[in-house]
């Protein structure tokens, strides 16, 4: 075999074979190779030696996800343990912002029917929060939205999306007890800056009104967290740790759902408020403000148009009239006046006033509501027939400061301290009050209007209920409250009054309902000794009406009541704005009283049956812990 390459390529000319001909170029190639390898190594040096921590963290962020476990809020129960506010499970979409791509926001918004601008604004809103905190962008996902998310959360499309289970507030339909309960919502910018909400963060859902706000801290619970290892598909591969959520504590209210429903039905179509409470301990049994709103619209985030509608509504459904409306009490103030008259010694059994249908004081003529007059009036008749002239005279004789003293003792013109936010104060005018606010001395003529619950005097329905309840108890005022078994209740305020005097007022109020000529006959209940007092109060002062300032508005109808007469268990104040006459508000109170005593009778029967059965050993359902036995226990405490 020839080893000459010449012969291997027959017919081809052969080059001089000098493999060393390119030695210089090969050497150059070697240097280039060295250069290339140094270039590569420097790449690794950069990543692995100079800042491996950065990439280590990135790798960890890649695979370790922290998902919040949202703590359910505590339920709200009524006094019998029935659920008023519950939670329901649903899915929420959270967006992790660490790997959020700007160009993904629009398709995600479109896929989930979220307004793009609002979503973008929301993301901007959270700019200040650390990136690793995911934010909830949509609650209560529908089936269609869930499938969209499941189909698009892979790493190639929108890996930012993450599903979590959440509990959402479920409020009673139709706004039952809406004002007492309040509603929850995402914490707002201004709330974040207020000391009340100092411990909450952006994105937290907090109570915004009512009980939800008042007891937010105990209702809220503490969110937990799961740290999981995920793969590139977002599938969980390993659970590193779970910090369980601490659910919020359930809260039992003093409200009685039965009474609440009856009161709301009675107020249907009317604007106003009803407060029913147990004067023996201050427990609020029912609290209604109408018109109401649907708190479910607030659960999560309220839509802008819903909010606008609520705010623009002239009836102002957001106002809790039970504690926030401040109106002149009108004649329902007369029981307090009567007590003041008796206590100050001005009124006694021989005190009589002749009512000709009006009287002049300090150069002005004051009408009685009864144009033809009441004739000869004593205290009892004055209360029963609500004679204005009688109380003008009482007021004129005892003076404004005595009136203020007893009104204040009854709790009027001051916050009752009920466990609800934003309670209004009302006004009990006095000479000191006028000097303080107007730098003017009190004119005796002004006392006359105040004597019949007009003038500068304004109260809230809750104050009225509490005042009448305490008076019915013979001058013992408990602090009204909404939470059952509250620990830190103050001792009742005991007025220094003669029980005999209180009894005279109570007898008057009994007459209002049960005697011929009484103004509150419509609240009469067979078998129950109901006491009450009507009130028809002008919404603007007489002076203003006369001078033509402001259009004439219909009078507010008030009715306060309690029962039974000698051992009161329930006190009620109802306010019907524009109801014109107090006697028209009486049936509202009657409905509530009927419901209360019907229920009591029912429970007593059930208990009686239960006791009979208990005599014989038996297994079976025992009657529920009846509240009927509770008043008996608290009665002693109340005395």
């Amino acid at each position: 075999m020839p080893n000459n390459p010449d012969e291997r390529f027959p017919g081809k000319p052969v080059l001089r074979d000098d493999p060393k001909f390119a030695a210089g170029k090969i050497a150059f190639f070697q240097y280039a190779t060295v250069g290339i390898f140094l270039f590569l190594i420097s790449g690794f040096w950069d990543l692995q030696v100079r800042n491996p921590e950065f990439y280590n963290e990135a790798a960890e962020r890649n695979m370790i996800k922290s998902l919040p476990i949202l703590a359910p809020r505590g339920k709200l129960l009524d006094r019998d343990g029935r659920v008023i506010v519950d939670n329901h499970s649903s899915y929420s979409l959270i967006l992790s912002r660490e790997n959020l791509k700007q160009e993904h926001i629009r398709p995600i918004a479109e896929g989930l029917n979220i307004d793009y601008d609002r979503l973008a604004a929301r993301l901007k809103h959270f700019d200040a929060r650390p990136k690793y905190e995911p934010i909830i962008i949509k609650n209560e996902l529908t089936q269609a939205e869930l499938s969209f998310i499941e189909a698009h959360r892979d790493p190639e499309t929108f890996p930012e999306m993450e599903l979590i289970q959440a509990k959402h507030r479920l409020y009673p339909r139709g706004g039952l007890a809406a004002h007492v309960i309040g509603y929850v919502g995402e914490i707002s910018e201004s709330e974040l800056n207020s000391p009340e909400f100092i411990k909450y963060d952006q994105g937290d859902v907090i109570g915004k009104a009512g009980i939800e706000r008042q007891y937010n801290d105990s209702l809220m619970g503490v969110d937990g967290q799961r740290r999981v290892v995920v793969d590139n598909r977002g599938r969980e591969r390993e659970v590193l740790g779970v910090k369980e959520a601490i659910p919020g504590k359930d809260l039992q209210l003093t409200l009685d759902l039965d009474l609440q429903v009856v009161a709301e039905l009675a107020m249907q179509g009317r604007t106003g408020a009803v407060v029913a409470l147990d004067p023996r301990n201050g427990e609020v049994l029912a609290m209604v403000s109408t018109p109401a709103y649907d708190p479910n619209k607030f659960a999560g985030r309220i839509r802008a148009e819903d909010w606008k509608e609520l705010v623009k509504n002239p009836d102002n459904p957001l106002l809790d009239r039970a504690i926030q409306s401040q109106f002149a009490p009108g004649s329902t103030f007369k029981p307090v006046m009567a007590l003041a008259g008796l206590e100050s010694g001005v009124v006694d059994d021989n005190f009589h006033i002749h009512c000709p249908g009006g009287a002049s004081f300090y150069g002005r003529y004051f009408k009685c509501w009864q144009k033809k007059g009441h004739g000869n009036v004593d205290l009892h008749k004055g209360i029963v027939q609500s004679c204005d002239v009688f109380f003008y005279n009482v007021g004129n004789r005892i003076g404004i400061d005595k009136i203020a003293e007893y009104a204040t003792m009854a709790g009027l013109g001051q916050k009752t301290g009920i466990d609800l936010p934003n309670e209004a104060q009302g006004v009990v005018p006095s000479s000191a009050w006028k000097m303080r606010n107007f730098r003017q001395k009190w004119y005796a003529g002004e006392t006359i209007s105040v004597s019949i619950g007009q003038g500068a005097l304004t109260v809230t329905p809750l104050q009225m209920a509490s005042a009448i309840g305490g008076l019915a108890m013979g001058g013992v005022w408990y602090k009204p409250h909404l939470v059952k078994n509250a620990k830190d209740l103050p001792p009742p305020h005991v007025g220094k009054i003669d029980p005999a005097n209180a009894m005279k007022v109570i007898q008057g109020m009994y007459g209002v309902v049960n005697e011929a000529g009484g103004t509150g006959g419509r609240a009469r209940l067979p078998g129950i000794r109901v006491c009450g007092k009507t009130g028809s109060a002008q919404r603007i002062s007489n002076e203003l009406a006369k001078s033509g300032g402001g259009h004439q508005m219909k009078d507010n109808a008030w009715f306060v009541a309690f029962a039974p007469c000698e051992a009161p268990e329930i006190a009620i104040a109802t306010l019907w704005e524009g109801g014109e006459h107090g006697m028209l508000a009486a049936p509202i109170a009657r409905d509530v009283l009927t419901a209360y005593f019907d229920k009591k009778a029912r429970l007593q029967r059930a208990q009686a049956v239960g006791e009979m059965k208990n005599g014989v050993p038996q297994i079976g359902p025992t009657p529920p812990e009846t509240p009927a036995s509770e008043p008996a226990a608290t009665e002693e405490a109340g005395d």
Partner: protein
Amino acid sequence: MTHYRSIRDIDWPLMIYTLLICAMGILQIFSATRDTVWEDAWWKQALWVLAGFALMWGIACIDYHTLLGHAYVLYGISLGSLALVLAFGRQAFGSRRWIAFPGFHLQISEFVKTVIILLVARYLTDLKAERVEGRELLKLGGLVLVPMLLVMKQPDLGTALTYLPVLAIGVVLAGLRWQYLAVIAVVLVLVLPVGWNYVLKDYQKARLVTFLDPGQDPQGSGYQVIQSKIAVGAGGMWGKGVTQGSQTKYRFLPVPHTDFIFSAFSEEHGFLGVVVILVLYFVLLMQIVQNAQTAPDRSGMYVCMGVCALLLFHILVNIGMVVGRMPVTGIPLPLMSYGGSNILSFFVMLGLVNSVRLWRFVS
């Protein structure tokens, strides 16, 4: 009559470097594919490597002059096969690269690399002049360009580009009248990707890539590079240990047993492991260069340097991609990346190098 070639005479250091790199590759494939559908890739790779060594010995036993003599025939067969692939090839991942055989698929473009090496060596050896003239350069360039275009059409830009360094090194070694142009050519081939990375803007790159290679998804490749850099960086100095790399384990790293195998390796073996492998590659290349320097004739030198340039290009582009210093082109890392065609193809090249070496001992 054939010459008896002793196995003692093959390039043993080259064999040892090759074996070490392949072994690390198999280990990495095992680690990267645990609990996945690719679980059995590591022993398949081991079989390919064994087959590769056998094939290499077979090629080494053939006189490379014989192969050079058939260079144009092989070239013609290559063009035909590439045309066949385009016409009837098996389609996967959006491109048509494979010809299906029972039990396995061959990626023709991988073997065409060897043919290009032979073609360039043959063409340049046939030149009588001391320099390559413009016309011959154009002719040779045209010859290389035809298969390149066919491969680009598949589309497979990365593999097509690997043919260029072979042409470039050959032409430079042969001598170019316009030296300046030659320098530019080499610089272009070897440094073009650097310019790509540092000069062009993202959207320009994306446009260019979509223009040249519609199958590439720039969005996707961006994700791949980020994950790859994270994996490399997370490896740190010492690495996380075999099968312990989270980027690999939880599959954040794309294709950790093929194109991004070095990324997975870096995560699990750290900077130290990287240096070891790079040193192995370097000494492997230098061993081939040494074979070029000691080649008995010009054609042998062209063959060895062609192999060398091709390997260097692969290493530069693949490892450069892993650390984010090269664009994602999807070409495998020689001897480590999983894949029968590319393993066999590289062993064929090593066989050629050995053939050149063994020729020294003849006569």
